[in-house]
């Protein structure tokens, strides 16, 4: 659009203002995790690592971290595979009820987490799973696979659909064509999707809180801390979770946007 330089500057500044708003809670969290005062406000006290020490000698938090790692290690590959399968099926095949399945697959993120949590809790306790790690894993797969599907489907939209058939015309079987054509051109998007699933699973608290019972993940532990009292320990744990999720999401974005094969950011 042809507008004056001043208008452009105002709009750009507004962008940075909103970015500052979005990052403000993340930045203060890091600052107060290193601040000695018990009540977090300004002016700041002295610099200290005490809150990290206090947080990581907490047995409940350590077992919660372990739970988060176990859950993520199962959820990320399974969700990514399922999301990949659904994206590939949508790209490659036409069948009755395909649209219905797509709508169904994109529905979970749109239903309030408390509602999913309640439904899951009722359902999983009927089949004797509620309060277990598998319950958390099962529900996280429901919540994260739509993300994986969406990202991988975007990548499929950029693949030349004839390549796979060309490979088959040259005598390759379905599986061979899959191995030679589909895997190489989607593997980056698949890896990015796995990182995203990991990030979402790591930060999920609502459904986990409902179905996990006494099995707490890191985010549920943070929720319990929040319920009990204000403590700079939350800042220390929070900083760690921020570092983990920001690393994961930046990794995913790097994979998706980098030049070369496999990213969805490439111009066709």
């Amino acid at each position, binding site marked *: 659009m042809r507008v004056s330089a001043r208008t452009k500057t105002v709009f*750009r500044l507004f962008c940075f203002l909103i*970015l500052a708003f979005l990052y403000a809670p993340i930045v203060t969290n890091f600052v107060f995790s290193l601040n000695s005062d018990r009540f977090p406000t300004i002016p700041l006290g002295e610099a200290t690592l005490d809150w990290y020490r206090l947080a990581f000698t907490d047995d409940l938090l350590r077992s919660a971290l372990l739970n988060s790692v176990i859950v993520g290690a199962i959820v990320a590959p399974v969700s990514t595979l399922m999301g990949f399968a659904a994206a590939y099926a949508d790209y490659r095949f036409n069948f009755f009820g395909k649209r219905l399945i797509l709508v169904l*697959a994109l529905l979970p993120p749109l239903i309030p987490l408390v509602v999913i949590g309640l439904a899951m809790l009722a359902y999983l306790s009927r089949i004797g799973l509620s309060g277990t790690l598998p319950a958390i894993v099962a529900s996280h797969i429901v919540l994260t696979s739509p993300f994986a599907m969406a990202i991988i489907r975007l990548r499929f939209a950029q693949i030349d659909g004839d390549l796979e058939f060309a490979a088959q015309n040259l005598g390759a079987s379905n599986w061979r064509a899959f191995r030679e054509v589909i895997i190489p051109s989607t593997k980056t998007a698949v890896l990015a999707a796995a990182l995203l699933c990991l990030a979402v699973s790591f930060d999920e608290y*609502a459904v986990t809180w409902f179905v996990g019972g006494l099995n707490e993940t890191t985010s549920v532990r943070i929720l319990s801390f929040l319920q009990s009292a204000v403590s700079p320990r939350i800042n220390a744990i929070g900083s760690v979770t921020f570092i983990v999720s920001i690393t994961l999401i930046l990794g995913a974005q790097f994979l998706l946007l980098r030049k070369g094969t496999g990213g969805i950011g490439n111009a066709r």
Partner: protein
Amino acid sequence: MKSFVTRRLYSHAFYGVTWTSPLPIWLAFFFIGPVVLLLWLSFWDVRNFVLTPDFQLDNWIRILSADYFWTAYFRTSAFAAAAAVTVSLLALPCSLAISFFFAMRGRLILLSLFIVPFFTSYLVRVYSWQIYLTENGIISRLAEFFGVNAASLLNTPFALLVGFVTLTFPLVIVTQSISMLSIDRTLIDAAYNLGCGPARILTAAVLPAAKPGIVIGALFAFIFSFGDFVTPTYLGGGKFTTLSILIADTVKSGQQWPRAAVIAIMMIATLLSVALVSIAIAYRRK
């Protein structure tokens, strides 16, 4: 030869089923199953603190005739609507800037920066906002420094809006930007050649063409603010009971799951209707 052909066909069908079925099967077991049970559960009975399968309308009658339910219902809807409007208005200038005032590289970097917070812990960010907004918190200390007397901003509708903007802004800006970036640039050039100024180009060309993204973005903001229970709990201090708080309280404090199920179904029904209306508005042609 015939057997070879059937084998090929069979293997082709097997190949298709292998890829098509896993996600629908999983969702059938762990998503459709729970939601259907939730529907059924709303007709169950609680006898001596034990859930008993039944078919009675008592839960529905009780909830739908309770004043506290309707208060919470309209409060939740009002907050979600306010959040949708606020976030959309704040995101519009940003997505305009991203789409028209930055080059490709700047666009990608900015969008990435806007997306990152969405995938970080909302719980911890809410805790940080408490630090800002509470009595003697960062904002009131700053105000004090400038000689303004600012009481606690926590537990006010403003605090809730701060939370909802934090929660939903990334979603809204991405949806708006996608639809603005896909506008045909010749449309804008044509408007310019016809003598339109920037304001007229915005209202006559850009906004109508980007309508789907703007409406769907607002819908996302509404959905996420409507269902969230962390914001009203920790930034509203429990002063504003919303539907999600009602559900969380009911479930964690006792066995009244059937009544919570009624509230949950009302939430799903509301969101579905809002979604259908929004989609109809978004893609309606004049």
